[in-house]
């Protein structure tokens, strides 16, 4: 099998057995990038020299018989809102277009310590605000399954890159579905861990109480491999959960345990959801039937407040964004307007010229929700509804071990289809957003194809800090299906 078609697991195995060098692996993926980046537009920065140098170091370590780490020689692509000292970190925004971070994100340190090789930084919706990657201030990313379609967002570059096999795995971030939606649209697997599981140190903040970093890859085992390296306590993020509260497991150990007796929750309210593509309903149905055959037990659960999740999210996330993005002042770092009228104009014009439309829209909505006279009616109300959404999940997880749901109401939509109406775009996240509000983990895995040959995603939601069970359920499903093994035509090396 060609190198770019290998899973991370198999690639690492071959490198470990010295059947393949890290340099061979890096060269194969750089070649794939060279060939397809022009069509897909998944990447903001490619790091060929850096990657080759790292690969040679790792090959030397392996030749010397030293331990080069659990991900030794694994090429990986990371979203460009994760700080890297060795490459610009733009957040796909004009305001950070030349920003060179003075430090590495925690996940970057962890990956490098484990021997992974960062070969490129991926495109995103500006500051991770969007569901299609069309809000990027740098480029539009195309879906490898159909270049007329969006890859989903905001981690659209990270997802499209894996689907096009530019890397076996990538990192994305998920504030309202930004890993799971693009994973579904691009026919790959993507995990949003529990809030607090992965340190956010060095992740450029959008909605701090919602943001989580997570892996994308072909299957659940590749995701578990990366989770083993990036998760765990880090004192530099005060919301990172210490070992004493939730010890970090080995995410690989439970994958092969049979599902017999696992209680899978089917959400009552999602059965009658309007506006969901019947092909997606049918695919989810089939998946739950398969789970039953595998020995799982289906139980009905109720999430009565998830219909309020989108409204709640767009107050909470934008309020946090308005405060987080106040740091872009044209003074300390980032873009400054060339000819300011006065010192206030340094702020106002730098921000007006540096931020794109959607970022401005969200800053304004959040500022409004927090402003005098509106705080109680909007922000405080949203925090109370957020509690009700969380309580729904707490009740549901008394009856079920995991919950099975769609990822999105549609398959990938066409480029330009939803850009003129922000609200319609927001509703793409209707099934993913509640997990961020509650803080629980969720995974999106491939579960079929539409009549137009576009991937359909299945979402598995887990209880707090129980990523292991959804990874197990995902991996077991992948032992009985082959949707996750499909690679779009044209991206298979000749």
């Amino acid at each position, binding site marked *: 099998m060609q190198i770019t078609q290998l899973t991370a697991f198999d690639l690492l195995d071959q490198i470990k057995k010295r059947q393949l060098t890290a340099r061979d692996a890096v060269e194969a993926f750089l070649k794939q990038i060279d060939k397809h980046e022009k069509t897909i537009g998944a990447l903001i920065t490619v790091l060929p020299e850096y990657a080759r140098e790292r690969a040679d170091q790792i090959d030397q370590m392996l030749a010397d018989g030293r331990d080069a780490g659990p991900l030794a020689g694994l090429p990986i692509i990371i979203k460009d809102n994760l700080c890297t000292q060795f490459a610009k970190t733009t957040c796909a925004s004009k305001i950070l277009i030349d*920003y060179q971070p*003075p*430090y590495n994100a925690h996940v970057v340190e962890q990956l490098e310590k484990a021997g992974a090789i960062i070969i490129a930084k991926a495109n995103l919706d500006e500051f991770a605000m969007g569901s299609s990657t069309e809000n990027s201030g740098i480029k539009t990313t195309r879906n490898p399954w159909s270049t007329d379609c969006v890859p989903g967002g905001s981690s659209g570059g990270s997802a499209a890159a894996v689907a096009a096999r530019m890397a076996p795995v990538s990192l994305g971030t998920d504030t309202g579905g930004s890993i799971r939606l693009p994973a579904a649209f691009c026919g790959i697997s993507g995990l949003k861990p529990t*809030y*607090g599981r992965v340190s956010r140190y060095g992740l450029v903040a959008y909605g701090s*109480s919602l943001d989580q970093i997570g892996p994308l890859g072909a299957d659940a085992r590749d995701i578990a491999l990366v989770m083993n390296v990036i998760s765990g306590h880090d*004192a530099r993020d*005060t*919301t990172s959960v210490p070992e004493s*509260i939730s010890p970090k497991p080995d995410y690989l150990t439970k994958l092969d345990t049979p599902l017999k007796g696992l209680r899978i929750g089917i959400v009552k309210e999602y059965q009658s959801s309007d506006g969901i593509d019947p092909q997606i309903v049918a695919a989810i149905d089939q998946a739950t039937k398969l789970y039953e055959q595998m020995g799982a037990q289906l139980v009905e659960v109720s999430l009565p*407040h998830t219909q*309020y999740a989108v*409204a*709640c999210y*767009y*107050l909470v996330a934008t309020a946090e964004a*308005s405060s987080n993005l*106040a740091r872009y*002042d*044209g*003074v*300390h*770092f*980032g*873009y*400054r307007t060339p000819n*300011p009228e*006065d*010192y*206030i*104009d*340094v*702020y106002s*014009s730098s921000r*007006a010229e540096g*931020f794109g439309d959607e970022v*401005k*829209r969200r*800053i*304004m*909505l959040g*500022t*409004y929700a927090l*402003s005098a006279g509106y705080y109680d009616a909007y922000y*405080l*109300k*949203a*925090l*109370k*509804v*957020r*509690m*009700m959404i*969380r309580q729904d999940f707490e009740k549901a997880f008394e009856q079920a071990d995991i919950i099975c749901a769609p990822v999105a109401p549609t398959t990938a939509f066409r480029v330009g289809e939803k850009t003129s109406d*922000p*609200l319609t775009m*927001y509703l793409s996240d209707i099934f993913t957003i509640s997990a961020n509000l*509650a*803080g629980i983990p969720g995974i999106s895995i491939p579960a079929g194809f539409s009549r137009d040959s576009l991937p359909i995603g299945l979402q598995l939601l887990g209880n*707090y800090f129980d990523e292991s069970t959804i990874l197990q359920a995902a991996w077991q499903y992948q032992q009985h299906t082959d949707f996750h093994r499909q690679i779009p035509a044209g991206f298979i090396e000749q």
Partner: protein
Amino acid sequence: MSNEISEAQVRHVAKLSRLKLTDEQINLYTRQLGAILEYIKKLNELDTTGVEPMAHVAPLRNVLRDDIAGTGMGIDKVLQNAPDSDPPFFKVPRVLEDSSGA
């Protein structure tokens, strides 16, 4: 149809957000924010009396550390991304008018 937010309110919010917007943008945002706020009104269907507001997710309170000085990253690194600087300072346009008459 009355809009959920007026043009004057949008101008005020833009000022609070330190965003210099054109009249055309104010007009567009008035319509778009109006539509989003109209949708958000949905939350008023819910009776939230007695519900505790949820500020964050993690099962943590008051995360403290020992009061031990660490090392900073150094002035060079702090200033490396500044649009204008005069080490060890950030440089900005004049803030106060020259009042000495000199």
